[in-house]
């Protein structure tokens, strides 16, 4: 879902960069509260895993592939603002080292693939804390649903940005993007649930569940 240079107008690129920079900046500013000694390496390995998993394009229908985005996984582990930071790190490396995604489109890509998904999943986690029991099943359900919604939110954001740039009409691009990403989002849900399950098995203390006042929930409240 990496937008290359040339797809977006300058106005849209700037309009996307503002909330992206704000979210990442907020993540950085809150880092002295949210990032305890365990979360510093957790942020590093989450970024590394997201980068690696993004390389693994899987086939979806009709000569199309999809790849993991990772915002939902990062938001479950680190909360929405640090998830935005994780995806920004990945996207900056991809743009500057690998020419994957445009430089002028970095703000839009960070918004679509990081901030939107992070905020969707952060909101769901907060709602689930009030509405659902603090069980493994509830957490995995939120991770699965959140992962799918995060991909759909990113696809919708991307479509709106392309339409606002005058690149393609919204009535054309929105259904096309949502259609193909409905399948890709299912892949995102599978990978997110597998990764969260693995963390639950290895280091359940890194996930919030029943713990009081977890930092990620403070961050969205």
């Amino acid at each position: 879902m990496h937008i290359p240079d040339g797809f977006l107008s300058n106005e849209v690129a700037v309009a996307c960069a503002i909330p992206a920079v704000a979210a990442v900046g907020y993540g950085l500013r809150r880092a002295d509260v949210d990032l305890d000694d365990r979360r510093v390496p957790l942020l590093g390995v989450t970024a590394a895993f997201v980068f690696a998993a993004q390389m693994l394009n899987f086939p979806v229908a009709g000569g199309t592939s999809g790849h993991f985005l990772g915002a939902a996984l990062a938001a479950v582990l680190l909360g929405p603002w640090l998830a935005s930071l994780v995806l920004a790190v990945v996207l900056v490396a991809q743009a500057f080292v690998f020419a994957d995604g445009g430089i002028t489109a970095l703000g839009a890509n960070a918004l679509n693939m990081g901030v939107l998904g992070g905020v969707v999943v952060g909101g769901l986690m907060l709602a689930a804390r009030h509405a659902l029991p603090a069980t493994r099943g509830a957490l995995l359900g939120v991770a699965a649903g959140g992962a799918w919604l995060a991909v759909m939110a990113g696809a919708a954001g991307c479509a709106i940005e392309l339409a606002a740039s005058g690149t393609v009409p919204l009535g054309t691009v929105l259904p096309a993007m949502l259609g193909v990403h409905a399948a890709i989002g299912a892949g995102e849900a599978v990978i997110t649930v597998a990764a969260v399950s693995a963390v639950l098995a290895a280091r359940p203390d890194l996930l919030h569940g029943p713990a009081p006042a977890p930092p990620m929930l403070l961050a969205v409240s």
Partner: protein
Amino acid sequence: MRRFTILVLAVAIGLATAASPFASSSPDGLEKVAADHGFVDRGTTREAPVRDYSLPGVRDARVATGLAGFLGTLVVFGAGYGLARRAAS
């Protein structure tokens, strides 16, 4: 935390190095939509140290992709860890 960090980093490096050469090379969702609806040519490309996830100077395409994945995963880990360390202190 050290063991967990090393374990996850090893999984990430393993996936990026050994699995990425076998990933689907079909266009992704956005590329497909751009091709279907006639705006794919608006995209511009540029030079980069490791274009298209293929390490320059390596003849075997799969090895070049695997090495690009290996390198990229380490770069991203270093950047993420370093930034988090600085921001947290």
